[in-house]
């Protein structure tokens, strides 16, 4: 119990549970739209935003040079998400757009961090996560952004389901399809920047998608899949973070490995149960 009184542990667990619950909400919509890898594309753009934030911090001669890194990531991720959504709605090949974002984001990130006088080592925390460095300021920002994701993602679930399930029908009912598509894209971008601190840019998509993939094997309802994925995401992040309190392991990679292992276990068990029932 004494460990739970440690402010660092408290911060890590608060951010972990928020991210673990919020990421699968948007992940459900991305999987529904068959754009599971969108998070990777936006994550790479967010990395360029992190580096741009560093550059801005250096230009303004801020005491804490990475003070603008997360705001920079939020801005770049949202711009990237809007660009991807506009390309998608115009029928541009999604894989090509995604590839350009992958390469452009990483290359720009490395280039800008160099121009800011930093090194690639400064980017590692963002590439692989750095939850042990979160401040109370980071926690409050995470609380705010996660609340936004949960309120909008859950509150508009029926409308967002309709748009991601059958866009043509949704348009015929008078739903503001373009605006709702943009909501999904922007919230996905916000989710990625919040989750970036926990698992890093390279694994951010996994936290959005893997809990959904696990939940899908256990239920046939869209809303239940989302709720179950939120629970799985929270348990995975809390478990991963708690283990790393005692073991010197990178939390982001552990959370994702735990998720993938759970996916395999659930897949095997459900497959066996189906055979037994036959």
């Amino acid at each position, binding site marked *: 119990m004494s460990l739970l009184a440690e402010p660092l542990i408290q911060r890590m667990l608060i951010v972990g549970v928020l991210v673990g619950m919020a990421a699968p909400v948007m992940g*459900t919509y991305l*999987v*529904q*739209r*068959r754009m*599971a890898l969108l998070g990777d594309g936006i994550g790479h753009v967010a990395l360029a935003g992190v580096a741009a934030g560093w550059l801005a911090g250096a230009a303004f001669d801020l005491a804490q040079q990475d003070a603008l890194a997360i705001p920079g990531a939020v801005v770049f991720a949202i711009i990237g998400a809007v660009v991807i959504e506009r390309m998608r709605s115009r029928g541009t090949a999604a894989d090509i757009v995604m590839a350009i974002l992958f390469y452009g984001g990483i290359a720009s990130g490395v280039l800008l961090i160099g121009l800011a006088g930093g090194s690639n080592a400064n980017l590692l925390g963002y590439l692989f996560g750095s939850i042990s460095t979160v401040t109370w300021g980071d926690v409050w920002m995470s609380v705010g952004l996660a609340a936004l994701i949960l309120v909008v993602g859950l*509150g*508009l679930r*029926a*409308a967002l*389901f*309709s748009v*991601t*399930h*059958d*866009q*043509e*029908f*949704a*348009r*015929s*009912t*008078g*739903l*503001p399809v373009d605006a709702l598509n943009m909501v999904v894209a922007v919230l996905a971008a916000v989710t990625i920047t919040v989750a970036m601190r926990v698992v890093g840019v390279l694994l951010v998509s996994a936290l959005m998608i893997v809990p*959904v993939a696990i939940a*899908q094997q256990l*239920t*046939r*309802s*869209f*809303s239940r*899949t989302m709720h179950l994925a939120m629970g799985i995401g929270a348990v995975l992040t809390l478990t991963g973070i708690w283990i790393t309190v005692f073991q010197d392991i990178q939390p982001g990679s552990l959370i994702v490995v735990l998720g993938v292992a759970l996916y395999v276990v659930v897949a095997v068990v459900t497959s066996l149960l189906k055979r037994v029932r036959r």
Partner: protein
Amino acid sequence: MRSAVSDPSSTPDVPSPLVEARDVRVALQGTEILHGVSMTARPGEVVALLGGNGSGKSTFVRSVVGAVPTTGGSIDLFGAPASPQSRARLGYVPQRITAAGGVSATAIEVVTSGLLGSRERDGRVGSRLRGLVPPRDARARARAALDSMGVEDLAKRDVSRLSGGQQQRVLIARALVRHPRLLILDEPMAGVDLQSQVAFAHTLGHLKEEGVGIVVVLHELGALARHIDRAVVLEQGCVTYDGVPPKDLGVHALPGHDHEHPHTDPAPRDGSSLGLEGP
């Protein structure tokens, strides 16, 4: 264009059209698909849109429901220019290709989505903001719509695992849950088993009796033939016939006809005179 009927609007007691398209033009990716299509559908009237692949049938109904923009002409719904508000009174059943997404969804979830968007209540169309969340009695209404299509027992089943006919009935229930005055269906019989075709024909007759106007895109009249009041035939984006439906459809009227044998040139009478395929 040939016409086999006189203009109904000239008769005083003929009700006003639910949909009236005049000289509608649609271009997709720079290519004009519809070259001035005009048609109407009135309360209690079932209009079949017929034509071969690429004739523009689906593009036309998609323009009516607002899924594709028009580049010319006009579309009136319920006596006013088509708008999100006027579309609140129509039900749309798109082609069944979109029945399943990447995440499983139950039939009742799919049907409940039909209660979103602009919706009519007490004769008034609600605000768009209210249309973002389903009404409180959404589940009960969705169950009633599924029941009307005879698939209430499938409410909690994953839509993607249902048969083609069952999926189609769920999509029709999604349109009917809105209690539309005008129902637009795009190829509802494609890939549908005989039992579902007969059930749908029964539903169509019932809706017609209630005064619902119906526009249905078909490859052939098939099981629906006895309910069709008027046929509009499209060829290469133009209306080539608008009038009484063909009576003798031969093998093409049979449900499940698979189109695998070569067609002969149409004879100058029967359904073939309308540009439809002959036996």
